[in-house]
């Protein structure tokens, strides 16, 4: 009886763990190596979105466009399925908007700093994924007193 009870409790504990474990599992996010990417312009020239400002001093947005040949190394996930995101961290000089169009390998989209957006979901069939993305950055002109570096990256959700 005792051994049966122990077996039963072990079984139910095991079953409980089996049920709980997947719910507790969390996807691990890994920054993808994009050192093979190339910018076609050395810097992003920012211009006023509109030549004239508004009456209320709102909407003083500067925009700049750049084209980048994106090449990311997805070898670690080869022959698996993956979700790839483009992430734009919170950073100086302040709120930044980023939108992009693609040649089709990745999804087009837009993101505000502090967020990320899905650009690919599916099987990883080759060690590298490539696409040409045209990015448009938008920043309040009041924050653009001087050239500012802005970073973004691609990341993979594992698990």
């Amino acid at each position: 009886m005792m051994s049966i009870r122990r077996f039963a409790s072990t079984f139910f504990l095991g079953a409980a763990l089996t049920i709980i474990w997947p719910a507790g599992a969390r996807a691990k996010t890994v920054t993808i190596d994009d050192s093979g990417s190339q910018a076609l312009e050395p810097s992003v020239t920012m211009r006023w979105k509109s030549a004239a400002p508004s009456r209320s001093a709102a909407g003083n947005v500067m925009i700049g466009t750049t084209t980048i040949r994106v090449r990311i190394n997805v070898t670690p996930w080869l022959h698996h399925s993956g979700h790839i995101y483009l992430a734009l961290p919170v950073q100086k000089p302040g709120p930044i908007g980023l939108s992009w169009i693609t040649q089709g390998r990745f999804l087009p989209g837009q993101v505000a700093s502090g967020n990320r957006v899905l650009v690919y979901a599916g099987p990883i069939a080759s060690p590298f994924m490539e696409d040409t993305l045209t990015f448009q950055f938008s920043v309040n002109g009041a924050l653009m007193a001087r050239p500012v570096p802005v970073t973004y990256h691609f990341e993979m959700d594992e698990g």
Partner: protein
Amino acid sequence: MPSPQAPTGTTPSGLRHSRDTLRRLTVGAALLAAAGSAAPYTATLTPAAPQEIYLQVGVGAFTNNYINGGQPQVNATVNTVSATLAVGVVGNGTAQAMTTNSTAAQSYWDGYTFCTVPAQLYIGGFFRTTGATTAAAQVTATVPANLTDTTGDSIPFSQISWTSGGNGDTTANGFLPEVFPGGKFVSGGVQTVGSMASNTWNESCWTFSYANTVVTAAGTYTGAVLYTMTAP
């Protein structure tokens, strides 16, 4: 004799440790290299010649209204503001309304009919600069001492004053407090007639008036006022 090779009995083990260490170092280096190559991509955003300045007194030129993507243009037109006095009222102290030949009634911001012509003269503009709000741009008027006629008679420019307004000119309607307030010409001087905060559209409509307190000979008296905008 002790075996000279005794100490070397540890050598293989030592070598193994060394290899393990080397392997770990190699792995560590590989991980560091991988971490380094996964650094975020950096794009440098560079403001390019972002400073712009625009002043319009009377008619101006835009390719289209601003809210439709219009771009400011150059317009060299010099408008006039004038009054014609009947003989019987010259110098009687009754102010005479002046009118303009400017046809600029609509704001280039949105096409809104802001000024009433020919009673009012449009004045507006803006200056663009990056970074935090700077000191305001100043608009000054360089005023001759007198209006003169062909025979040398004159009328002091200080006889002319103006009030400021505009159709629906309220903050609630999206207009700023009056940035080009009413005033009076200072004969032979340079005076400030308004200021513009950076990155804002500013506009007013001026209604001119001739004081009519001097008696002069009949004639056509003219003078030109030069408006200058100076941005920091």
